[in-house]
């Protein structure tokens, strides 16, 4: 194997003095802090609108605006009668690089639809949010547009979604 020798940068005199460098860092931090404080204070009174201060969202009270195409938690779309659009073709399961989807198919009572999922399990703990499942679906049955981002659970089991949860996000 070819090896590449990386030459570490030697500390110069300025860096070795240590305390002046720390002081410089503190100065940069405080400069930003006081500048932002001043700018936001001016904005409060309606001045200096052309100056832009650093922004902070008060999450979770305040949500950051999301792009229209952001991939968020999955959902299964429904037909007009409320049954899932999914026909259990297993395309999403096949394409999923994380193998987080597990579908079991069954017979649909309507012979013109033929097939439907008996269960549709999705493990959010394994999902990598690549969106391939949405892209590959021939029925527009799975979407990643619920805008749910804060997914958390106390156990691995809690990260798993079944068909009911996917149909009613």
């Amino acid at each position, binding site marked *: 194997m070819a090896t590449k020798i990386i030459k570490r940068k030697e500390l110069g005199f300025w860096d070795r003095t240590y305390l002046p460098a720390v002081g410089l860092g503190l100065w940069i931090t405080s400069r930003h802090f006081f500048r932002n404080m001043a700018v936001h204070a001016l904005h409060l009174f309606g001045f200096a609108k052309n100056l832009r201060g650093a922004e902070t969202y008060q999450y979770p009270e305040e949500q950051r605006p999301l792009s229209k195409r952001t991939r968020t938690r999955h959902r299964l779309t429904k037909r007009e009668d409320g049954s899932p659009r999914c*026909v*259990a*073709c*297993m*395309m999403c*399961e*096949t394409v999923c690089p994380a*193998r987080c989807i*597990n579908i*079991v*198919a*069954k*017979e649909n009572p309507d*012979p*013109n*639809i*033929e*097939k439907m999922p008996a269960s549709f399990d999705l493990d959010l703990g394994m999902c990598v949010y690549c969106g391939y499942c949405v892209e590959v679906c*021939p*029925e527009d049955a799975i979407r990643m547009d619920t805008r749910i981002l804060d997914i958390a659970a106390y156990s691995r089991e809690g990260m798993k979604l079944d068909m009911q949860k996917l149909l009613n996000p």
Partner: protein
Amino acid sequence: MANITIDGKPYAVKDGITVIQAIDEAKIDLPRYCYHPGLSIAGNCRICQVEVEKLPRSVIACNTRVAEGMVIHTKSPKARESQQAVLEFLLANHPLDCPVCDQAGECKLQDYYMEVGLYDPKFDDRKVKKTKKAFPIGPTIMLDQERCILCSRCVRFGDEITRTHDFGIFNRGDRSEIDVCPGKELDNKYSGNVADICPVGALTDRDFRFKMRVWYLGSQKSVCPGCSRGCNIEIHYEKSRPYHLKKERVMRLKPRENQAVNRWWICDAGRYGYKSIDHGRLVEGPLVGAQMNRAGTRPAPTWTSVLENLAGIFKKADPAAWAVFASPRHTNEELYLVKRIFLDHLKWGQVAFHAPGQEGDEDDFLIRKDKNPNSTGASRILRLGKPDEDITPILEKARRGGLEGLLVFGHDLAGIAGPQTLETVRQKVKTLVFEGPNDNPTAAVADIVLPAASYAEKEGTFTNFEGRVQRIRKAFEPVSGSLATWDWLLNLSGLLGMSLKHRGPEDIFEALAGENEFFKGLNYKKIGDQGCLLNS
């Protein structure tokens, strides 16, 4: 011989064969739907268009005979254009069902569309809908008329192979549809084959319906253990998604072409006979004092301790008071080990394998009366002589209390001689040892139960009724707690102080071939995929 040229290469082929046969012999891919080498030539799908030089237009390869000096092009622009045009018409009324169609992934329409599809279709008429969508036409097959391309393979199969004349094409033009004849049901012993020969998803298997997409399946070549014909099969098992259908591994069996045995076909009993691989298995590991263990009162012993225990019993056993019921369901290798251990080394006189009264139905096509895959191998290897193969005299002796111990390989004594006999034998025989893959009444009362691997979980060979030695192959690991019979027999032979130094079935078979004149000169390489006949 006729000298012809296909795609620029010269070939010498037999006179009178068709162009498609010559193309198949040359191993060139050519699309085909209605042509099947096992059926008569219909020539109605028209997809196998080839260009023959000096002929004004392209012709179908399946119904054109070769002639001296013929120059054939299968991939020239002219041939391609004809194939594309034909496929366009075949797809005219075909629904876009692929997501819900079980054939997707092994569908010839999909395959050939990739190859010779007209990606810019010119057809914009409305598709003709058939009256009924998917519906069952018998216990094994679903029919979807919309998906049918009217190749008539199933019609010819019913007319020529099973002679049951089940199918017909009804109505005319674009309203023609395939159906079973009115008032009839597709219910014959070979009905499953129509799902195999159907090139599209019109006829699909009800047993496999929606179970799994075909691209998840792994495949292993094997031999059907359902009767002494030994039809060549492929075991299709779940491979890539271990969390699917957790306890079932085998999804379906498909016939494998072998002109000397089953041609392209397999009977339904064999096709759906795979359930015993995943159901009713002995999975708890070896058991001693079976009834107590099954209630879970003490931990299961390990294979090592059970085999040591067995070896101790066998060493002390009186050869005249012990008997072995070997199994004609075991491979040649395992039967050879049974012979070496029990006949040659321990010198037990009472060994038999043939269970009477177990014969089933028979026909003049594939199904054989003897439902064991390796009866021929058992009699050739154990060499007991015809009357001594029968287990009845030994069983009778056991019933009268003449036996101290009995080692049963796979047989169900209750099924052979009735539950009464099993009960008496159980009381009279001090040690009853059972070995087999599946649970049965004999296993339930045995003192020691040894769970064995099924035929899909081990390597080996079967000898069919005409003496053809064919290989079975391991598709997946044995279920937890079980061992292949050859595996534990080898371990046991070591514990008994024998010096069998075989590394596996291939090695054991070599030893068998060195010793037994029927098997002389055979080896796994020679047997290959299509089997090899025994020396007579």
